[in-house]
């Protein structure tokens, strides 16, 4: 069943269209920056973006930061929201279940397919952004990876602790100013890709749960997105600090910590943990609802 779901995923035009869109956004941004040479000043704008003019090889990180807030969660919510509701409204759900495909098995296969989609999207963005960075923005002009890393784009005071000036410190090497070898950089990019993929699983689980409640794929996707927007608002609201550690988007930016030297693990671990909790809770809710539901669609 997992193979069938993956096959359905890759045979759908929507899959490639949305991944293409996600890759296109960083490309457009890169073209603008390359033409105007106007990167956001350190400490402002999207993470890493201030540094990419100096080192195109950092562009994958900047690109991920660009698609993370909206594009990626929207695409994941649409795919996950469609998972059960889409089959139900198309009428194929009853035929799958009468095959028979176990209802639990179907849910798990759907989650795996959504995970695969997220991974494909993140990987595609990373790879195209690397090419974009090297070809359009040019390779490292100031200090390349592994050099001293004291280029002009590093904000003063960004050395040492990963506290203030988070984006500002997005420099050629590590955020902390210490040099990274190429191997370390690759490892950290892979870590960031994995973390971002996992960060999307919470959304995916919420969307899949909503997808078992309704026959409207759009409704399920929008419901999951509404949850995310609410979470984003609460994350920045000081009055909501009590619930902030448990919000699904609280640790979304923790992948930046992969680019510190040494890697700052605390938030990364918490990010993984909170997503795991969301996946377990909402998948269980989805299962409890779906396994006992009358299929009348």
């Amino acid at each position, binding site marked *: 069943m997992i193979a069938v779901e993956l096959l359905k995923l890759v*045979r759908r035009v929507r899959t490639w269209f949305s991944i293409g869109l996600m890759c296109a956004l960083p490309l457009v941004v890169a073209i603008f920056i390359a033409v105007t040479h106007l990167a956001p000043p350190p400490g402002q704008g999207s993470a890493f973006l201030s540094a990419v003019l100096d080192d195109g090889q950092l562009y994958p990180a900047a690109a991920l930061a660009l698609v993370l807030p909206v594009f990626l969660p929207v695409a994941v919510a649409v795919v996950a929201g469609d998972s059960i509701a889409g089959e139900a409204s*198309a009428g194929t759900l009853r*035929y799958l*279940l*009468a*095959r028979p495909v176990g209802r639990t098995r179907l849910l798990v296969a759907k989650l795996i397919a959504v995970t695969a989609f997220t991974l494909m999207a993140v990987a595609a963005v990373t790879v195209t952004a690397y090419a974009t960075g090297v070809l359009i923005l040019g390779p490292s002009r100031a200090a390349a990876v592994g050099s001293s890393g004291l280029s002009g784009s590093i904000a003063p005071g960004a050395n040492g602790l990963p506290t203030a000036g988070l984006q500002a410190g997005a420099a050629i090497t590590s955020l902390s100013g210490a040099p990274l070898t190429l191997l370390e950089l690759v490892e950290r990019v892979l870590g960031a890709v994995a973390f971002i993929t996992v960060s999307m699983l919470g959304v995916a689980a919420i969307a899949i749960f909503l997808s078992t409640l309704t026959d409207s794929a759009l409704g399920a996707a929008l419901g999951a997105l509404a949850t995310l927007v609410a979470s984003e608002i609460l994350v920045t609201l000081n009055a909501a600090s009590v619930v902030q550690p448990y919000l699904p988007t609280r640790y979304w930016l923790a992948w930046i910590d992969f680019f510190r030297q040494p890697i700052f693990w605390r938030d990364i671990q918490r990010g993984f943990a909170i997503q795991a909790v969301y996946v377990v809770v909402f998948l269980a809710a989805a299962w409890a609802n779906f396994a006992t539901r*009358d*299929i*009348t669609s």
Partner: protein
Amino acid sequence: MITTRNLTKRFGNVEAVREVNLDVREGDRYGLLGPNGSGKSTLVRMLLGLVYATSGEISVLGHRVPKQVSRVLPEIGALIEEPAAYPHLSGRANLRLLDAAGPQGKRRTRRRRVDDALEQVGLAGIDRRPVRAYSLGMRQRLGLAAALVRRPRLLILDEPTNGLDPRGIRDIRDLLVGLNADGVTVFLSSHLLPEVSALCTRIGVLDSGRLVLQDQLASLQQPTGRVLISTDDPERAVATLDGLVEHRDGADLVVRSPDPAELNARLVRAGVPVHSLAVQRRSLEEIVLDVTGAGSDQFGVPAAEPGGTVKASPPPSADGTPPNQADAVLPGPDAAPLAREDPEIS
């Protein structure tokens, strides 16, 4: 093959299926009749484990449903209301995908089984177009192919001839009769009486969720004890069959006699030219109308069915004198005295 005991399904306050005791036997071509909204689809879905019963028991192929439904379903081919497919994929790709889902669809034989199923429903050769471009009839055939691809022992088909033209209907009927002859039990639901009449050996009638009738079609359609005669010389025929003629409508006579051969001999001896002579049987329409309530007024209305798939209703008689119904199979008012008959001698 399928038995249910006091099967009941309630949706909120609505009892969609009430105390149904279905009995489908191996080798049957069973037709479940009932107007739209009578509970046919809910019943079918319960048999397949898609809808859970409120109370009662279901046994399919000797296994309890829904508890052991995963052991039953691989041997069942199902068409559940309309067919459904992924519109952007071809018919063949849809069948392959559906077959790969769930257990039992052996990969080694998949290509051959898919080919066979497409061949059986007459879609071979045009199966590479995306389903989006299929006509309603082609989608229906594809749905049937999907039901056949696992070579099931039992077919559960909801409205299998929906959307097909007259030729398609006959193709599918022939296909189902052929499969049945090879040992496949066919259970289908329909609201098209002529379809069921032409195809099924056994019928059940649902009315407002209740199974109001279930029997062999042949025993329901036993001769009524009357013979329908059409002649050029009705005057002489009436005189010859002294006292047996119950009803006369122009050149058509309804004669009470259990023995058509004897009637024929008498008419021939008297030199009466006989155009046709047939044993009167109750039509399926009469049988069904007798047992269904007033709520089923749209039952089998030909005009409601697109595609010209329904035979015309029999014309009502001129003066409407109903024949004696002492030996009618079922109690109830007799709807049409000159109903359709199966001509046996002509």
